[in-house]
């Protein structure tokens, strides 16, 4: 008479027991096993629905109804447990013993660096780009014409002695450029004024000792337009110097001589060790404009050049110029990758 009720009671009890067991460690696998056991195609409930056919006519609708109720109850419980199970897994993962985070890294050791000259150059790019300058590069193998004559350094002139030059055996009158100023000529031949550019690169002189390297880096800064004057030269140089060395940087100008500028000056910056020579500058000489067919009555301009290696040594407190070019891994890997200090 109450056999279906008894069956239902047993089912309920057994499910509760299984559920309780599963709740102890509700991992995805345990829940899936529970689901299959009770709700699977060959599970306990399916078995009962199948057995329904054998129940008496009177009992069948009642038993069926109760079974459906139980079935949805089980479904609800399993679904609820699934939700709970996700939480459980998160806590299980969290419960993992903590790592000794002080152990050394594996795949990415602290390595990778840019050369100090690159770092400084990139800083200069940033400053000059903001001031509206473009970057031009030029050749290192150069004819005497572009390296000297067009820059108002005639053949056989004593001012050639200011730079001890490497000569090439290839072709007539070829040299390794002694200064980045050769780019002035290439740029002015290629472009029409106004011009506003910087030009970094390697330059070469026949000298090698503790403070001189046969190869080093210069950066040229050139402005050509109508009405450019000496105050503008000062303005750009001082803006640049304060960006690099700080707002209270003092700059001094000493009259000097570079054949491609007039008036020419040497630029000193006041630092920890007193005045330090940083570079040379001046108003572009009319003879240089003549060499590139610019009308020097209409256009004026200035050029400013300085050593990048020296700047890098100053900014990073480096003492030995030669170390910059020896390719030592342990030395170079100390530098960062991002320029701004």
């Amino acid at each position, binding site marked *: 008479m109450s056999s279906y009720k008894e069956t239902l009671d047993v089912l309920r009890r057994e499910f509760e027991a299984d559920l309780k067991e599963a709740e102890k460690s509700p991992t995805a696998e345990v829940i899936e096993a529970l689901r299959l056991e009770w709700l699977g195609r060959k599970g306990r409930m399916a078995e009962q629905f199948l057995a329904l056919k054998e129940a008496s006519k009177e009992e069948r609708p009642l038993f069926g109804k109760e079974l459906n109720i139980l079935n949805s109850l089980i479904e609800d419980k399993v679904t609820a447990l699934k939700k709970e199970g996700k939480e459980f897994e998160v806590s299980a993962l969290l419960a993992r013993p903590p790592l000794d985070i002080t152990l050394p890294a594996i795949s990415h050791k602290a*390595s*990778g660096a840019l050369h100090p000259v690159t770092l400084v150059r990139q800083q200069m790019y940033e400053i000059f780009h903001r001031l509206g300058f473009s970057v031009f590069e*030029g*050749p290192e193998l150069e*004819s005497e014409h572009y390296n000297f004559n067009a820059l108002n350094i005639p053949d056989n002139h004593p001012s050639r002695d200011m730079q001890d030059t*490497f*000569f090439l055996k290839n072709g007539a009158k070829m040299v390794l450029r002694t200064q980045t100023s050769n780019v002035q000529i290439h740029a002015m031949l290629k472009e029409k004024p106004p011009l506003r550019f910087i030009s970094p690169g390697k330059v070469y002189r026949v000298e090698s000792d503790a403070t001189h390297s046969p190869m080093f880096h210069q950066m040229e800064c050139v402005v050509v337009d109508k009405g450019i004057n000496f105050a503008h030269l000062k303005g750009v140089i001082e803006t640049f110097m304060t960006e690099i060395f700080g707002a209270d940087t003092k700059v001094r100008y000493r009259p000097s*001589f570079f054949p491609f500028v*007039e008036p*020419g000056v040497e630029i000193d910056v006041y630092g920890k060790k007193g005045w330090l020579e940083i570079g040379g500058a001046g108003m572009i000489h009319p003879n240089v404009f003549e060499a590139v067919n610019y009308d020097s009555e209409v256009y004026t301009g200035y050029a400013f050049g300085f050593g990048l290696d020296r700047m890098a040594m100053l900014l990073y407190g480096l003492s030995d110029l030669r170390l910059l070019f020896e390719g030592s891994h342990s030395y170079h890997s100390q530098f960062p990758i991002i320029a701004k200090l």
Partner: protein
Amino acid sequence: MLLSKKWLSQYIDLSHFSAEEIAETLTQLGLEVESVESLAPLHENVVVGYIKKASPHPNADSLQVCEVSIADSLENLSIVCGAKNAREGIYVAVAQVGSILPGDFKIKKGNIRSIPSFGMLCSGKELGVSDEDAGILELPSSSSLGKKVSEIFDTSDSIFDVSLTPNRSDCLSYRGIARDLGAKLGKKLFSPSCEYKPSSFKTAEEISSSVENKEACSRLVTLVIKNVTPASSPLWLVKALEKSGMRSINLIVDLTNYVMLELGQPIHAYDKKTLNGGKLVSAVLKKAQKFTTLDGKIVDLLPGDIVMMDGEKIVAIAGVMGGKDSEVTDTTKDIVIEVAQFSPLQVRATSKRLGLHTDASHRFERGIDIENIPFVAKRLASLIQSTLKEVGVPDCEVALDVQDIYPNQKLESFVTFRLDRARKILALPLLTIEECVSFLESLGLKLFKKKEDQATFSTPSWRHDLAKEIDLIEEVGRLIGLDKIPSELPSMNIRPNEESPFISFQDHCRFLLASLGMSEVITYPFSSEEDYKNLLCKEEDFLWPRVKLANPLSENESFMQTSLVPSLLKSVHQNRNYSDDGSKLFEVGRAYFEKASFSSVKRESDFFKNDLKTNYLESDKEKVVFERNLISGVLDSVSQGKTWQGEETRSDFFKVKGILEHFFHALNIKYVEYRRPDERDCPFLHPGASAVLYSYDMCLGFVGELHPRVALSYDLGSLVPVLFELDLDRCLDAVSQKVSVETTEKKYPAVSRDLSFLVSSDLSFFDFKACVLKNPRKKYMTRLELFDVYEGEGVAEGKKSFAARYFFQASDKTLGENDIKKEVDSLLRFLGEQLGAEQR
């Protein structure tokens, strides 16, 4: 150039200026003072004393014991003295115990033949105030007791080391420097005297001088002086030269040097009796000839060199150096003085070729003051006469006149100065024409005419650097002081000049490699043929170095590199020597080639081919050489790469390939293909563990393990580094112009199957994969990921297996078992047909 403040004060009153102030003023004038050395005055313990009593030394006949008073209030000092003139009643210079005399001579308490001595009585020479060393210095009786001798004889001085730029030849002299200082400080100059007592003979009667080529020698002044009996120079002359860094030779030579330093004009003096035929001719050499210079060196003179000749032979290399045979010596009696102007270009060419850079050639090549030449000759005559007299030599005889050959008088040169232009350039709108004229006149320019705000000047003969208006503007700026010019930013057209994308591209490349753990280095681009032989290159290779330096620092550095590989390998080797065997280095640099050699290159390869373009400004169409931009890297193998999680994987081909793939991906360079290189491509890499990289048809570079034989020559052992080198300009070309992104939404899940295929063992994975992706019946397969390559036991000879996970996905449904099976079957069939592959 070394400058003595005392000597300089002969031409300008500097009494109110300290050495530091003078140095600062000179520097602000553009005459950079690199250092100031101060010469100390006599030691303060050298004082005036009075010999109260002088008695013979009991133990030595030649010595006396003197009782010397240096102050009424002090006890007398007992001093033993050997001088004959030491006697009672004279005032003397007493170096007390503790004083230091010139030459770092310290005075201590002595004991001379058992008699104690408390100091020293000094001779003029010992004090450095005269040549006298026969006895002690006797001071005037008016001298006050105890007074410091330094207050009587001032031997102090300041020596400025001035670094002159080549345009300021006028400042290669005391008078020139004084002139610039005078203009800045507003002071008058004192002119040196050229007075002398002439004899009755004329120079032309004694010597016949002439000029053969007036371009080579534009002015020649000669002067004969007789009876210059040899004498050594007086102390002041020796000291003056010494302070300017010159050595004393003899009185005549010293005075020619003195006048050169004073007035900037080189002078040569000949021993008159050595000039054959009584001639002195300036000539341009027509035939090569040997010549012995006065320092005894034999040099080769060539046609074109300017020489001075007597009736028979060369007696001097004009403007450079005199000859051994005609120099003024101790036996010289009569001299011929030559003061001239020689062609600056030729003097420079000759002195450079001979390696004879002299004080004379230095001045001639920079330009001397042609108008001042006669004055120089007279000034020298005046000094010779007065100095010989001073050292006690009877009157010498100076010719009545100089002989002056000046064929084409130098024309005055004029430069016009516009106030408006000066104001614009110097950014000084308040500048007045009066100010400017006054500045320029103070420098020796002569106002020729002035019309409103425009002034025309004739420039002084000693200034060779004032050729244009801008030069005058510079002078005005220099005298005003550049610190008076304001500082402001230019306002310019906002359009920037076009910048090549290559500029930022290079830095992106640097950044990427650094982020991948590599360190950037910069090395010298010099190399040698030996370096390339070590790389197994041959002379007919493109890679063979051909850009050669005419004057290298050393044989090993006589060529410009064609690859960054040699210098990177040297760095790796050096780093290993310092036990740094994990070098991961890269460099961005240039390689240098000769265009003419293209035709002779027999072993051409895709990487080294005559179609290179480089992204830098170049306007020289005739150029015989060119440069390419490279980025190269080297990863050294780690010999003991242990970490706490186990062995660190060695730097091998695939590790570096990983770096490169990341690099290319980040730069949006697509379709990079790894092809097996042949010998021409990179002979220095392991033929089995290297690849050339292509993006479509463009060869970007190479990557691979170092060839074991090359490793041997670099002493790198068996753990070889892995290298790569890429052409940066080509890499930029290979960058895809657009970013392509798959835009169809993936709504349905992907399904994967692991499949393993047996293929011929020489089939590359690249070809295998290409074949897989080419399957014409492929509908759903999206990608495959290789997880195993196996060859060996269980696999037939000549076969290998590629095991990979294949992914399938559809855009319109969830794939069912059937769909996958169909697609896998079609793949099996296709690979079977195409590659003879079987499923394993």
